[in-house]
C-alpha cells in the first residue's frame, strides 16, 4: 500500500508540471497588455517599459518561465497587480471558507446520495427508485444559482432559519456553522444527483453478479448481501464520481459563494477577473490546479483501499 501511495505521489509531479506550464502559457496568450491595464492607455512608453521591467515581463519568455516555476517551487505566487499584496496570503485567508464549503457539500452529497442510490437499486422500479430518479433528475437540471436563490427565499426569508448573508458573522463557530448549512445544501444537493445515479447503476450491476448468488447461497440475510457483497463492489465508480466531483465543486463554489455572499476562492476568482488582475488570476489557477490534482491522488489512494486488485496490478 505504501509503495502504491509513493508511486502515485511521484506520478503527480509530471502532472503538476504540465498543469503549471499550461497556466503559464494561458496567461500569456490572453489578449491585452497588462501594463495598459495597470497604467491606463494614456501612460507614456517610458512608464510602461519601467513597469514591464518591474514585473519581469521584459525578460525572454524562457527566463520568465524559469522564474515562474522557481517562485512556485518556493510557495511564492507573486503580488497582486491590483492591491500589490502577496497573493499567497490573500489565498490562504479565504481558502478555509472554500474548503469547509467543499467538504460540507461533499458530506451532504455522499451521505444522502449513496443510501438513496442503494435503496433505488434494491427496490428497482419501486417507489424509492422512482423517487430517486426524479429527485436526481431535478438535481441535474437545476443551475446552482437558481437553487441557491430558492433556498434563500424559503429558508432565510420566509422561515428565517438561516442567515441571508453567510459572511455576516464568521467569528462565532455556531453562527459560522449555521451560515454554512444553506450553501452546503445547495452544492451538496447537486452532487446527490450524480452520486445517486452512479451508486444505483453500480449496485444494479453488482447485484446481478454471480458472487451475489454465492453470497445468498450461504444464507446471508439480504442486508448483508447488499452492503457487504454488492456495495463494496459498487464503490469503485462511486469513489470516481466523488473524486471527480471535488473538481466540479470548486468550480460550482464560484456561483454559490456569490449567491450566498461568502468569502472564498470562487469569490476571489471573480474579483480577479473583474479587475483584470492577471497575477492574482494566475495564482488562483495554480491553487485550483493543485487542489484538483490532490483530489485525484486521494481518489486513487481510495481505490487501493476499496479494490484489492488495484494494488497488485
Amino acid at each position, binding site marked *: 500500500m505504501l509503495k502504491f501511495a509513493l508511486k502515485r505521489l511521484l506520478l503527480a509531479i509530471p502532472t503538476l508540471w504540465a498543469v503549471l506550464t499550461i497556466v503559464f502559457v494561458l496567461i500569456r496568450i490572453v489578449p491585452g497588455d497588462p501594463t495598459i491595464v495597470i497604467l491606463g492607455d494614456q501612460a507614456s512608453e517610458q512608464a510602461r517599459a519601467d513597469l514591464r521591467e518591474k514585473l519581469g515581463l521584459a525578460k525572454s519568455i524562457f527566463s520568465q518561465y524559469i522564474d515562474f516555476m522557481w517562485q512556485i517551487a518556493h510557495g511564492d505566487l507573486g503580488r497582486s497587480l491590483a492591491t500589490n499584496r502577496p497573493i499567497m496570503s490573500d489565498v490562504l485567508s479565504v481558502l478555509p471558507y472554500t474548503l469547509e464549503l467543499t467538504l460540507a457539500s461533499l458530506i451532504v452529497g455522499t451521505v444522502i446520495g449513496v443510501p438513496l442510490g442503494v435503496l433505488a437499486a434494491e427496490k428497482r422500479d419501486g417507489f424509492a427508485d422512482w423517487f430517486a430518479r426524479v429527485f436526481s433528475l431535478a438535481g441535474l437540471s437545476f443551475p446552482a444559482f437558481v437553487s441557491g436563490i430558492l433556498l434563500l427565499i424559503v429558508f432565510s426569508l420566509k422561515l428565517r432559519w438561516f442567515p441571508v448573508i453567510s459572511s455576516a458573522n464568521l467569528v462565532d463557530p455556531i453562527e459560522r456553522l449555521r451560515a454554512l448549512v444553506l450553501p452546503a445544501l445547495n452544492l451538496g444537493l447537486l452532487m446527490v444527483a450524480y452520486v445517486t445515479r452512479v451508486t444505483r447503476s453500480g449496485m444494479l450491476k453488482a447485484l446481478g*453478479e*454471480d*458472487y451475489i*448468488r*454465492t*453470497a*445468498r*447461497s*450461504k*444464507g*446471508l*440475510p439480504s442486508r*448483508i448481501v447488499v452492503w*457487504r*457483497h454488492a456495495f*463494496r*463492489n459498487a464503490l469503485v465508480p462511486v469513489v470516481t464520481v466523488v473524486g471527480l466531483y471535488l473538481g466540479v465543486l470548486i468550480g460550482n463554489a464560484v456561483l454559490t459563494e456569490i449567491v450566498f455572499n461568502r468569502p472564498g476562492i470562487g469569490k476571489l476568482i471573480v474579483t480577479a477577473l473583474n479587475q483584470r488582475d492577471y497575477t492574482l488570476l494566475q495564482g488562483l489557477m495554480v491553487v485550483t490546479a493543485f487542489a484538483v490534482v490532490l483530489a485525484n491522488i486521494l481518489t486513487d489512494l481510495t481505490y487501493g483501499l*476499496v*479494490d*484489492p*486488485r488495484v494494488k*497488485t496490478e
Partner: protein
Amino acid sequence: MNAPLIVDGVTTSIRLDGQRHDVVRDISFQVAARETLALVGESGCGKSMTALSIMGLLPAGIASVSAGKIIVDGIDMVAADETVRESVRGNRIGMIFQEPMTSLNPVLPIGFQVGEALMQHQGLSRSAARAKALDLLEHVRIPSAARRLDDYPHQFSGGMRQRVMIALALACGPKVLIADEPTTALDVTIQRQVLALLADLQAREGLAVLLITHNLGVVASVADRVMVMYGGDVVESADVKDFFARPTHPYSVALLAAMPRIDATEGPQPIPGQVPSLDAMPSGCRFQSRCHLRQDVCSTLPPLKPVAGNPGHQVRCWMRGDT
C-alpha cells in the same frame, strides 16, 4: 430415516409478458445420504431452475415454485418463509456454481468468504471462523492454505477457486450439496482432481449430492443414478449402469450418440434442431419436434413408465417402456 433431499411434484414457473410458462414440470426425486444423483440435459432443459428452486434462490418476481414440496433435511423450503430458508441455505444445504472465476467476491479475502457462513449460522467470532476456514481450505487441499487465507480471488487459478467454492459450500457441514456444472469451466486434468475431491468429501461426510451436468462422461464416472431432463420434464430416470446399458428415451439415445467416444467407428451425431423457446413449447411430449419416432399420440404427455419390468428405470415416452 428420510432422505436429506426430497423433491415431490415440483413445478417451477416463470412469468414473461404476463404469461406463465412452466420451466420445470412436476418433477419428483429423492437423494439419499452418500448418493449422487446426476441431472442431465442440454442448456435450457430446466436443470439449473431445479437447483435454484431447491435453494430458494429463484429470481424474485420472475420465477417461483408453483406446486409441490421440497424437503431439505426435514424442512419444507417451499412453505417456509425467507428467514427459515436463510437458516437452511449454506447450513443444511450448500451449492457450488459453474463459474469459479465469477462466483467469488473479488473484493473480499478468501478466508473471510469461506468463514462467513460459519459466522452467520453458528455464531462464530471472526477469528474462530478464520481458524475454521483454514481447516476447510486444507481439507480441499489448497497448498499452503495458511498463507493464502488473506489472498483475494484474483490471486487464485480456476481450479483453486473451485476448491475454495467447495470449502465455502461445505463450511457448515451440510447434508445436501448441489453441484451445478462444477467442472464445466475447468480444463480436463483439473476436472478429474475436483471430481475426485468431491467424491472423497462425499464419502467422508455422507453427503447427498445433486450433480447437474451435461457431460455424460462425468455422469458415468461419479453418479449413482441419472435423471435426464428435456424442456422441464424428466424424460428418463435410472441407475447409472442401467442407463448406459439400456438408454431408452429417444432423447437419451440421441444424447449418447452426440458424445464423442474413443472406441467409436463413427463421429458423434448431433441432435437436429434445438430446444423450442418457452412460448413455442408443443403440448404433450416436449421432445416431439426433434423426435424421429413421433406419432399423433405424442401431443398428449406420456406418463413415466418402467422399462423392462424394472421399477428403478423409468421413461416418459409413448413409443418406449412397458405398456
